[in-house]
């Protein structure tokens, strides 16, 4: 989660850019590491609580690659 500046620094920053809505959850929300990442069972869409349309977790390497992509984009946009 961005803190002092909004440069992406955590895998949650990448996850929430991979799909919209609350598609992921954590087995331990105080320890947001890939090993604790799970798919949400349900999401809210158009006023209904339905099965999560996302049915497969991204791989850890895909998540890390997305985070690097976001960081590179941020750096490029901020003179990095």
């Amino acid at each position, binding site marked *: *989660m*961005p803190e002092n*500046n*909004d440069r992406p620094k955590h895998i*949650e*920053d990448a996850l*929430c*850019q991979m*799909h*919209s*809505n*609350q*598609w*992921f*959850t*954590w087995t331990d*929300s*105080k320890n*947001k590491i890939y090993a604790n990442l799970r798919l*949400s*069972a*349900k*999401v*809210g*869409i*158009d*006023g209904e*609580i339905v099965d999560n349309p996302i049915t497969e977790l991204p791989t850890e390497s895909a998540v890390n690659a997305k985070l690097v992509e976001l960081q590179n984009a*941020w750096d490029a*946009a*901020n003179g990095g």
Partner: protein
Amino acid sequence: MALSKIDVANMLTGVAPLANGGTGATSFTAGITEADQWRVTSTFTGDANPVASNWERNDFNFDKIGTGMSESSGIFTFPSTGIWEIKYGGVSQIGGNAQNRWNDWKIEATTNNSSYNLIGATGNSGALSNTANSQYSSAQSSVIFDVTNVSTHKVRFTIDVNDGSTSQMGASTYQYHGATFIRLGDT
């Protein structure tokens, strides 16, 4: 007559407090009997209609008063009938160069445990960000809801965004996006 000899019970219609020689049994009505606070632990992007997952009760130096709310897939059930105040809000992150004109933060209620109606709303926006950096803005809505039946009267929360790249910030160690429930009195 000295003031100490006056029987205060003769000046009251209720039961006098112990300090005044009464029984103290029902001298004062109870204060707040229910208060609870919940939050969304993870950031997400786009709409959530309703916000259905990643809810947790505040767990840092916090204790609810009374029984507390119960939550299932984003549907909150009240522990007792009464007049309740519900506050809902949080912080949005609008990405750099995004053209987000609005986010709607909504409190919705049902009185038949089925169909939900909007009872409170607020909004925020990214003010048409044209910089590379993200913008943050907050929103909070408050509403008073008469809960006459805990089986039928429930609430949930909804986020609608104009720009699908907008994120609603979540955290599990502090109150960032969440709801507060306080029972104000009897229905």
